[in-house]
């Protein structure tokens, strides 16, 4: 018995450590790819540069960026862009549901709604920056159809510009949601919908009680992804369409980071803003994780 127990214990010990060994290469890659930049970012954020290469350390960078009204206005714009997420989600869910019902030409429509998503963001930005000019295509169209009073300086008016960017983002991104939701709906048992129809359930009741619950996990995923995108993936739109203007009305956090790091030569301040952005994104993910757990608990 004791003869067996020894090797068995050793085997268990070996089995316990061996997985770590096999995981080591991946762990090293992850450390190098994510760990090193993260540590470097944190170090840069607390490094205060002096003249001709001298440095000091402290929290001065954080104090400085938190006192910056431009950063506050940029964060506010990110929050405004957050409002695009529920709009995109609702539009995408409704369109996906309609397409799932195989309306005439649904395959064509499915391709069409996905086209904006596969276009490169800078291309979209450039095209829309021309369309939305004061004498651009949109205003010319409005004038042609007798709606001249609706023509605006879409990108030149500081009250409107961020909402113009907002609309372009919705236009470009909602197609991804449609495809995601359609994929999920393809796993919905058609018999359920047929049975509901037999029971004389109307479109809305079928949607509310069958389709929507089936889509719930994907909606939650799409919402989370959308929020993170609005926080840290909108630089391209703003950079190409408005470059933060007019009068700083369309700055977003990423643009602040980019300009501080690369235009102003202030990588330490950029690092401080990045740390704050990372902290906020982490907070969002934590909240999402808690919500997900709660949903799972309710479902179980």
């Amino acid at each position: 018995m004791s003869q067996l127990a020894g090797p068995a214990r050793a085997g268990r010990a070996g089995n316990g450590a061996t997985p770590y060994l096999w995981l080591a290469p991946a762990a090293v890659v992850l450390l190098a790819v994510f760990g090193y930049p993260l540590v470097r970012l944190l170090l840069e954020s607390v490094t205060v540069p002096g003249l001709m290469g001298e440095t000091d350390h402290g929290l001065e960078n954080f104090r400085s960026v938190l006192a910056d009204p431009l950063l506050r206005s940029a964060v506010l714009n990110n929050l405004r862009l957050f409002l695009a997420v529920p709009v995109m989600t609702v539009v995408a869910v409704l369109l996906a549901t309609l397409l799932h019902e195989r309306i005439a030409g649904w395959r064509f429509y499915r391709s069409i709604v996905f086209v904006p998503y596969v276009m490169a963001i800078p291309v979209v930005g450039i095209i829309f920056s021309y369309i939305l000019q004061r004498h651009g295509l949109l205003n010319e169209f409005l004038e042609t159809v007798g709606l001249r009073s609706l023509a605006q300086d879409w990108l030149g008016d500081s009250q409107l510009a961020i909402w113009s960017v907002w609309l372009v983002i919705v236009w470009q991104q909602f197609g991804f949601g449609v495809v995601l939701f359609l994929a999920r709906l393809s796993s919905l048992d058609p018999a359920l919908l047929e049975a509901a129809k037999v029971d004389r359930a109307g479109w809305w009741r079928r949607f509310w009680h069958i389709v929507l619950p089936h889509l719930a996990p994907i909606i939650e995923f799409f919402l989370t992804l959308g929020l993170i995108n609005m926080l840290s993936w909108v630089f391209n739109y703003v950079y190409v369409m408005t470059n933060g203007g007019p009068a700083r009305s369309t700055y977003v956090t990423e643009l602040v980071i980019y300009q501080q790091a690369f235009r102003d030569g202030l990588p330490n301040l950029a690092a401080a803003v990045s740390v704050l952005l990372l902290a906020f994104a982490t907070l969002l993910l934590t909240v999402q994780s808690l919500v997900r757990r709660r949903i799972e608990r309710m479902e179980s």
Partner: protein
Amino acid sequence: MNGFGPRASSNAGHPLGQPLGHPLGRRQVLRGLGLTAGLVAVPGLLSACGSDDDGGGANASGDLLVWYWGEQEAAGMKDFFEAQVTQYNAAGTDSAGDVKAVLQESDTLYTAFRTAAEAEDGPDVQFFWGGTQALEDVWMGNVEPLSDHVSKEFLDQLDTDARRETYWDDKQWGMPFYQIGTAWAYNKKMFAQAGLDPEVPPATWDEFIAALTALKSSGVTPLGAGFKDAYLGGWLVSYLGGQNFDSIDDAIAVFRGDTDYSGTKYTEWLDRLKELIDRGFFNDDVLSIDLYQGQQMFETQEAAITNSVQPQIVGFERKMGADTVGVMRTPVYGTGALADFFPAPSQVLTITSFSPRQDRAAKFLEHLHEPAVMKAMYEACGAITPDKNFDPAWLNTEADKTMAQWKETLPNFWYQYYYPFPFERDGVTPGVQQLFQPDGTVEAAVKTMQEAIDKWRREQPAQVKAYQDWQLLS
């Protein structure tokens, strides 16, 4: 460099110490991971912290890498530069290696260089827009003093106004490469149609307002401009913002901390600009088109006047004819010694602080100021070298001759090259863009500019110190 290197290398003191296949304890595994991470990180750190010096000091052999710019504002620069490099290499002037020149894009001119400077691996010669837009990299430690590598005779032959823009701490940092006479192009035919004398453009503010009013009444857009890409702010403040200054020192006093950005001396230009906006002299889509689109309005004869630079004005003249294109200075409203001025700021080439070929780089820069090369550059792209040996007889357009005469007789000052760039980005651009809004006010614009200065002072104390130390070249 940042404390991470020594910490990583300290992991190297923990060998695995266990043969493969032997069961490993968690501690050994973690130690192993630490060592592996250290081994992976160290080469990268060493390459990031090391220099590119191949042992040759300031004359190391190998290609001399030049990152230049200019095609965007002086069409033909690329052909000129490539031809010069080919000739220079063929002549064997530099026996230690060839010159290799790479044209840079506007958007990445600074970002690419600063990334290279961070890694201390990049060009030996770097192009910068002039003045503080080059000195910022001097203050970062990315640039080597030119005056440590060239003779006093060479420095003396450079245009003094051009030298002043990148002269700091008793050293010359940038080599003035070409100057960009900055003025307004106007359409003589539109002036004539509006009942104005096409050969006598407005010189005072009252004349300017009268001319713009007449042009507007004749049915044309008086001023064609684009401000969506933000560049116009730097132009407007440089055209209008220094007319109450008595010296360039007045411009930098605000940034030294001697005074606030307030009072007539500093802010009257905003009232003047607001007057132009309120009277509807600019195109109504100024905020939704880019700078070059605004300038194109002049070329397509949709606007009578536009902001422009020497090579571009010459291009207009060659394309539209000298009977159509005229050049005018900014009309005078101010009372300072710099009120009537002609700005001809210079773009510069610099030697990088991390270059192992600094003497060779200096030699190449001197070559660009040889008479035959200066003449070739002017003929290729219309760019004038700020050098006392540049012969005015080489000039071959009316616009060039007119601007050359102005440069000889008037103060040369371009505001943009004396203020820190964040002042423009955070103050001038948003402040002036506010002015173009229906509810924009001068007070709000001034407040935005002062806030930008305060922010810059808070964020960049090192640059504030650099300004306080700045003694202008007389």
